[in-house]
Every structure is written in C-alpha cells, then in structure tokens.
C-alpha cells in the first residue's frame, strides 16, 4: 500500500500511462489537483481530443498553452491550497510539431517548404508515435522553463501504453532512416548509387503509387534533411528526461483481466527500458467486505430483517454478484502486485457517481492520497 504523496516525493515529472478507457485522464487530473491542494504549483498536460480534462476542471477552452484553474473552485470545494496552483493544458500535436519545425529549420525557406508540404501536413496525425512524441516534446519544453514544481502528463489515448515509450525511436528512425537518403538524393544521383535496380524499383513504385506521391515524399525528406541532426539531438534529450531521477511513471489500469495483463506487460517494458516505475493505480475496483462464510443463511437473515422474502432473495443474489466481481478484482490486483513485485499499488473503488468536477477529483484523492492503513479503512468505509 502506498499513497501518491510518497510516490511523488522528490519528483518533478509524473507520467500517467496505460491503455485506453482506464480512467487515465481523470487520474492525472486528480493527482494534479491533489498535489496543488498540498501547496505545489502543478501543471497537468493532456492530449485527449474529447476534452475530458477540460470538462472536469471547468475549462471549456484549453489551448496549446497552460491555463490556470480558477482558485475559487478549490475554495468552493473547501480546500485551502496554501499557495498551490493548478494549471492545465491540452496538447495540440500538430501545433507542437509546427513549433519543432520552426525551431529546427535552418532558414525560412526550408521552414515554409516543410510546413506547406502535404506529406508533412498529414504527418502529425497519421504517423504512429508522433502524437506521443509531441507530448514528450511539450513536456520537455515546459520542464525546461522551470515554472512548475510538478508536471503531470496524461499520455495520449493510444491502443497500448507501449506506443508512448517507442515514440522517440520511431520518429528518429523515420527522419533519419536509410531510405530517407534515397529520397533525399536528386533522382539522377540516386539512380547512380543504387544502380539500375533502383531505377526499375522507382518505376514499379510509381506504377502503384502515382508519381506525385513519390515527389512529395522526396521533397519532404529533402526539406527535412537539414533538421535531422537537431531532431535526433532533441529526441535524445527527451528520452533522457524520461529516465531522470526526478521523473516517475505511474501505470493506470482497471481491475479486469485484460487491463491488468496490459499493465503487467507495460511495467515489464518500463523496467527493460530502465525507466523509473513509481507505482500502479487500479481504478474502479469492486470492493465488498471479504466476509467469512460461517454458515450464515443470508437469505433467512435478510428476510428476518427486511420482512420481505422476495426482496431478501434479490438482495442476496445481488450481493453474490458483487462478491464475485470483488473476488475477481482482488485476485487480479494480487496477481498484478506479484508480477510487478511492488507494494506500490493504489486501489480506487468503483464510486457511485461519475467524476466530472473538482469535488469528484477530491473524492478520488481520498484513495489516491490515503496513507497506508488509512486506505484500507477508507475503502472499507466506502463499501
């Protein structure tokens, strides 16, 4: 058992990773709000186009820059932030990519050539990993500016969390790959180097793709060539930041078999990549007291208390259903802790109400920030 306060002790960057639909955005927002409530200046970065975070923090319009969450929201929720501030921003991958190009382009002409290239215009949406890389890029930028005590990154809603880790590698490979050099060479020179085979090859490619596509690609890579070095260097530093002592990865998952397996897999990849794993947060855990089956005839007891045989039967059946789910979740979480060899597992129970405002985030924080034994007591009390 652990609390987020312990897991984030001495950390400046908290990366919330996990597969889609496990409550990553809500968790990121709750952590950021919780740390702000503890007196820190915190910024939370999300890329979710559904603006979930914006909705939950009463910020209908989030741009590609940080905006402060109205401090009176905290006051209204009865929280004294003691100077803490909560900032939020929604990452715009395209705009961030454009910024990167502007920063690295050697001259204005190159910059314009890239920005107006149709291949480039589709790149930030279509290239696997580019959203992820831009999230890291923005994280790096804001971190370098040093205005916050803590940055919380809600990773993009990709199919699996691994896409995030592989993003810098993919993007640098893309930009400096071997075939890039082929596209970069003026056609005649390329033909000479690669011989007649390449010439036939291009002929074949033209046949299935169309000439213009190859030309656009070629132009794109030629324009990009001058930036490859700067790009690679940046990717290296971004990767370095992910592995920094002041960075921690929190894995977010749900209690069902599949999300648990994905979390275990992602944790293994983190360890392999020597990235700092902080802990795991399991959301929406079904929790029923683990009552010993001491031969009590529950239906009879319920009937005695309720005075309604039919209702008693239904209440008992309902209880049995939820105890089944509770047992499954307990088993899955146990498996998770054992596989990860960690005690840093935080469970958030399946709450009666959806979380859509600061008060809801604070409700979650009762579990995220509960220390040790307090947590068990709270989960029990909620049940």
């Amino acid at each position, binding site marked *: 058992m652990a609390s987020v306060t312990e897991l984030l002790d001495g950390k400046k960057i908290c990366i919330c990773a996990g*597969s*889609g*639909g*496990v409550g990553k955005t809500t968790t990121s927002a709750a952590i950021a709000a919780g740390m702000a409530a503890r007196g820190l200046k915190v910024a939370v970065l999300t*890329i979710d*186009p*559904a603006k*979930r975070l914006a*909705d939950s923090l009463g910020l209908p319009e989030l741009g590609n820059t940080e905006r402060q969450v109205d401090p009176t929201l905290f006051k209204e929720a009865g929280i004294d932030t003691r100077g803490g501030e909560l900032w939020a921003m929604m990452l715009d991958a395209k705009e961030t990519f454009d910024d990167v190009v502007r920063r690295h382009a050697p001259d204005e002409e190159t910059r314009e050539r890239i920005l107006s290239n*149709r291949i480039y215009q*589709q790149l930030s*949406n*279509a290239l696997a990993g580019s*959203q992820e890389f831009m999230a890291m890029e923005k994280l790096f930028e804001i971190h370098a500016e040093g205005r916050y005590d803590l940055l919380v990154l809600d990773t*993009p*809603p*990709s*199919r699996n969390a691994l896409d995030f880790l592989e993003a810098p590698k993919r993007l640098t490979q*893309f930009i400096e*790959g071997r*075939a*890039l050099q*082929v*596209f970069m060479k003026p056609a005649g020179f390329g033909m000479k180097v690669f011989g007649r085979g*390449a010439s036939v*090859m291009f002929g*074949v*490619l033209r*046949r*299935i*793709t*169309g*000439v*213009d*596509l190859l030309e656009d*690609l070629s132009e794109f*890579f030629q324009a990009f060539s001058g930036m490859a070095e700067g790009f690679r260097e940046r990717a290296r530093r971004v990767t370095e930041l992910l592995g920094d002592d002041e960075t921690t990865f929190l894995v977010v998952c*749900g209690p069902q*078999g599949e999300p648990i397996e994905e979390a275990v897999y992602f944790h293994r990849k983190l360890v392999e990549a020597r990235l700092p794993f902080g802990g795991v947060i399991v959301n929406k855990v079904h929790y*029923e*007291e683990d*009552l010993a089956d001491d031969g*009590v005839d*529950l239906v009879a*007891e*319920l009937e005695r*208390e*309720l005075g*309604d045989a039919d209702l008693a039967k*239904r*209440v008992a059946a*309902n*209880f049995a259903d*939820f105890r*089944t*789910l509770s047992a*499954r979740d307990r088993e899955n979480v146990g498996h998770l802790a054992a596989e990860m060899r960690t005690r840093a597992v935080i469970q958030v129970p399946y709450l*009666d*109400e*959806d979380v859509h405002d600061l008060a809801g985030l604070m409700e979650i924080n009762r579990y995220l920030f509960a220390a040790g034994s307090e947590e068990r007591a709270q989960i029990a009390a909620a049940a």
Partner: protein
Amino acid sequence: MNHVTRFRLGTRHAGTIPPMSALFDKRLVIVTGKGGVGKSTVALALSLAAAKAGKRTILCEVAAQEHLSKVFHRAEVGFHEVEMAENLWGISIDPDESMREYVLLQLKVKAMRDLLFRSKIFTYLAAATPGLKELVTIGKIWELTLDDRKVRKGHTYDLVVVDAPATGHGVGFLQTPRTFAGIARVGPMHQQAKTLDKFVTDPKKTGVAIVALPEEMPVNETANLERDLTEEVGVEVDRIFLNGLYPERFSPAEVARLEQVAGQNGDGNGPVRAACRSAIRESRRAASQREQLARLEEMTKAPITTLPYLFDPEIGVEQIEALAEEIA
C-alpha cells in the same frame, strides 16, 4: 435482464426503430468507440447475432488484438480467414500483410514483386507515407466484402464486421481513404482511395455503430463522435450500443427499506448490512446510469440499444452468446 431498445420521440425515427436486420443487410458494419467501452465484445456479439440470423459473417480485428481467438479458445487467428462458429469467420488484419497482398494484386509480374519486397526502399515507403498502412487495412476489409473476391479461394461473405481500432479520433479510421486521396492526388492509389471512400460512406453498403458506456464522459464522447461522423465524414450512425447497463433491481421503496436496515447498528449482523449496502449501491449506479441513458438519448440521433452489465468474472463464449441474444 431488462433490455430496452428505446422508443425515440422527436427524431427522424419517430415511432419506429429500424430493426437490427437492417444493419445485418449491409455489407460492412464498422464498430467504433473509445477504448475500454467493450467495443470488441460488442463487435463479436454483433457478428455472432448476424451469423445466427443466417448471414455469412466475418469479424475483422485490426492491430492484432486477438479477442476473437481468446473467446473461442483458439490459436491466434492471424491474417487468415478462420471459421469460429457456424456462419462466423474471423480474421486479424495486419497492415504489413495487407500491404503485401495489395502489391501482389497490383503487380502481376513476379519479378517485379520480388524486386519490391526485397527492397528496403519499399519497406521504408510503406512506413513513411502517412496513412498508407491504414489505407491498405481498409482496402483489405473492402476486399472481404466483394462478391468476386480478389484473393484466390476467398470465401464470399454476406457481412463484414470491423472492430475498429480505438483511437483518439473515432472518425480517423473512416476518414483515412479521403485523407489519403488528398495525399496522392492522382494515380492508381488515388483511385483506390476514392473507391474505398465511396464504399465506406455509402449508407446502403456500410453501417456504423458506436459503443458507449452509461457514464458521463463516454456519453459526451459518443455525442461528439456522432457529430464528427456526420459533419466531417458525412455518414449517419446506424446504431449506438449502450454497454454495461446495470439492471434496476430494487424499487425506490425497497431502497428506502434497505437504507433503514443498513443504518441500524445491530452488531453481529455484518453480512446483512453489507448485502443491504451492496444493493443500495447497485440501485444508485443503476439510477445514475439511467440519467446517462436519458442524456445520450437527448444528445444523439441514432437509435440506441442497451446491453446489460454482465456479472461474470470473465467474458467467454457463454457471455457473448447472451449478448448476441440481446442484439438479435
């Protein structure tokens, strides 16, 4: 289980809801939605329901999820058409394999194909061209819908169901052909992309279903997705599946009674209190879910089919069969 296909007033379906068979009569149904809403489960149940209704159906998984083989306890399906149950086939569509197949179909001269596949330039082109992998994936799905299959010895299917990849932009998958047609302005790929775009946006041939959960954010996202599909892609949503709806097990009067009993501090009767509290929580969730169902009805146009929450630890064949019954 209380399964409600809502009677929807004030919509273009006023009074009537097209039967599920209208969806089964399409050639392609794309099942979309955000991650974690049970999209794969619903896509599988929908496929099974179609198969049971007599349609030769194939379910396509994209990006190696392999839910299908897990549920049916089979070895991984892979890039093959595998029969999973009567009238039900499955295939896991791999973009690299799709690309290979596409080139094989384009280039009849073996020497040219060999040249291309041996070439690193080709591999690179495939990776470097934005959207190309997604395009050939949709191309493969389209190929499956053809009466006259291009792949040798390919079966003919009445219905192809796609478990679309969960992405930030739900419309991304459906928009790929049009986007690509814009990238490749002329040439064979431009033509292919246009053909695909026409197919996936033709309501006679292609249906779209969104899977949602009865929670605030998923309901918002579903409404946004329906709007984007209509406005950006120009397709109507045929059906929304609201997944995981708790049954209304207790009446308000019963809940009041349960609260009374749960509040009594009689020591030594832990199980009774715990069971009562559990019932109260269930009824609260069930009620808040119905508020979300009402919001969904308010915010969307497509007919909604609700699917019950399954109180089973794991989803297996039995559970899929139950959901297929609900859908049929």
